């Protein structure tokens, strides 16, 4: 079974059950994504992939909405562009995107300003360096949820991390802010692997960036003690 529908005026036929994002990608239409990752359950929470579907009151997330026959989809309508640009501008006013190159590219493409929201409260936090494998820099976290998902049912079933706070104050956290070695974390590294912004980063990479030499790092690794790295 297939579905035939219009995307940006182009007639597309696609296997039943595929999403609008699949359809776009198979047909060379660019729909940006942030939280979406092939290996994790799509939650449609970043809303950057929203598109306009005729007859729908609100914009629809392409990553989960299934293509259906006789749908009419606009991927770059005025509404869509405003929503994407504003989401990007809000991200830039909230967190450190210095290592999120994909998002920087999107901002350029959508003409999103990094200083659209003056006097905005930013989400800032200290780098947490509490285990031998990875560091956590939540100033760079854009809450895509991927790390929480791979730590739970999407991959590892470790359940070491969850959320602190709510709303804008949300941050990824551990049980009563425990250090990673005191949690159920098994240091599998999958969270760091799916992090899109460098908020979670292998310790070695971080230390190299901090200017340490591979030799210094190997000494550190043989040491049992956790050491505060001087930036």
């Amino acid at each position, binding site marked *: 079974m297939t579905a035939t529908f219009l995307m940006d005026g182009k007639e597309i036929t696609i296997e039943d059950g595929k999403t609008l994002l699949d359809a776009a990608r198979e047909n060379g239409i660019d729909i940006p994504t942030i939280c979406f990752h092939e290996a994790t359950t799509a939650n449609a929470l*970043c809303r950057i992939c*929203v598109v306009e579907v005729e007859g729908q009151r609100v914009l629809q997330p392409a990553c989960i909405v299934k293509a259906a026959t006789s749908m009419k989809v606009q991927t770059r309508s005025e509404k869509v562009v405003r929503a994407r640009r504003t989401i990007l501008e*809000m991200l830039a006013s909230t967190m450190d995107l210095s290592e999120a190159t994909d998002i920087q590219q999107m901002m350029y493409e959508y003409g999103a300003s990094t200083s659209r929201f003056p006097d905005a409260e930013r989400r800032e936090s200290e780098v947490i360096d509490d285990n031998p494998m990875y560091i956590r820099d939540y100033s760079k976290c854009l809450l895509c949820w991927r790390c929480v998902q791979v730590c739970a049912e999407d991959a590892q079933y470790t*359940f070491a991390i969850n959320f602190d706070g709510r709303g*804008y104050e949300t941050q990824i956290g551990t049980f009563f802010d425990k250090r990673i070695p005191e949690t159920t974390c098994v240091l599998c590294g999958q969270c760091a692997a799916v992090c899109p912004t460098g908020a979670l980063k292998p310790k070695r990479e971080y230390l190299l960036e901090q200017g340490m030499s591979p030799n210094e790092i190997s000494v550190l690794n043989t040491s049992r003690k956790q050491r505060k790295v001087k930036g």
Partner: protein
Amino acid sequence: MSEIDLTPLKPALEKYIPLGRSGLLPALHAAQKIYGWLSESVASEIAKNLKVPLADVHGVIEFYSMFYNKPIGKKIIRVCTDQACALKGGDGLLDHLSHHYDVKPRQTTEDLSLTIEQSPCLGLCELAPAVWTMDDGRWTIGDGTKEAYRPSSIVYGPIRELTKNCGSGTTSLKKYGEYTALQKALQMKPEDVVAEIKASGLVGRGGAAFPTGVKWEGAAKAQADQKYVICNADESEPGTFKDRILLLDDPHRTIEGMCIAAYAIGANKGYIYIRGEYPYIVPVLEAALKEAKSAGYLGELFDIEIRVGAGAYICGEETALFESIEGKRGFPRVKPPFPTTNGLFEKPTVINNVETLCNVPLILSKGSLAYRKLGTEKSPGPKLFCVSGDVNKPGLYETPFGVTLRDLLEMAGGPSTSLRAKKKKLQSVLFGGAAGAFATSEHLDVKMTFEDLRAVGLPLGSGVVMVFDETRDMRDVLKRLGKFFAHESCGKCYPCQMGTQRQMEILNRVAAGNTLSEDFIRLQDVGWTMTDASLCGLGQTAASAVLSAMKLWPELFVEGRRLKVESQKVSEVSKVSKVSKTKSKAVKKVTKTTATKSKKTTTRKK
């Protein structure tokens, strides 16, 4: 950490263990009742017993405002400072209490005897300013001067269909009488009950106005071994208090409505999810459920469990409410799939608002034809309005659909009289709550029906009619709206998570008179992005009232607005006097309209 004695916790947890993760919120409530707060050791013990990952338990505690992971006062005084209470001095009361007890808002005394909190809407808007005190598990409600064990119910209006028993002083089954509507339903085929509800034209009263019969039909047709009926009593929309009165004064009506729904769709389990701010309803409801059980209305075929929220507006969103019952953070789910097929525990579920369910016995007893004689063709039946703010008689008003805003304001004693006995004029009415929109005197003759309000771009929402007279600074009202949504956003989707924060920041600037150039367009972009792109109804309506205010009073949002505001106010007043038919000789005094200490006033005589 080991100082906390876990012995009393273990027996308290026992009954929640079979529930597994779904027992998490009740278990946390039970633990907090014992210890006052949730320590690491207590949380670990709960996690172990219910077999929930530690990090997840922590995540749940962090999500709900009324779960505390740090020691808190034995006594907690919560003062509402949302819109309706702010009009009646909520801020001043909070200040007074914190001076009196010498503890700042959101702080706890060193000896852990008292905590004072500034609270989002407590659902006591007609009794504003509202204060809710919990003292070692006992609660009192009051305005700071007098306190009571339960809030009083003030009910007015030309008809008493849904509110027949409200204010009668008893909630016994004897007073309510037999569940005759249920008995009648049981004589019918389930599909005929659904057909009757469909024929009645009943639509949801929680705000979304979805046809109830269609919802029931969906769940009735779904194939499953288990189905649920849920009563959404997480009434948290600022300005709304109808469900509180219905449940507190007449719990059997809701229970009967749920029984009928259960029969119609084939459900064998029901939940009533009450917001945590209504603890005084719980014992009343428990007693009513017990009575219904002994009378044989509830039992093996269908039984109802009470669940209590813990301070999260988002849990009024149906899928977030499911998550909450399932023992999770109240994150809304993506729809579709819809609750009628994939609801609570992924099973077919009908979830209805309290007022909606109260209409059900009425429809069954009267028959849909007679029911439709009330109200209008497209909005049949009775409607409850929660009238608060600048009126002489705030309260719950029951009217048929189709009365005008003017009728309602006249019943409620219009914008109220000042101390100097000069009648103040109407400035605006907030319709449908924080997620609603503003009306002005231009809308006085609009009929209060879904179709008439929709035609002028106003939402009926949950029936909120919050009145502001001409002396009120709408920027202060908007600032509070902004704060409310920023506090209540769950943080899941980006437009709402960041948009509510940015909206609040801009509205704070506007209220403080520090509006930046381009704030107008910034606020529009944020508002429309939330409206168009958010995941759930909260985000999609978080800018609704703000956008409506921007349309009505664009002058309030531009840089250097002070002069403009004055002139705009004058034209506003003259508009009022043209339309308004009341007291045309009154002197219209425009007092300061800002929070910026501008002392300029304009007096205009007609």
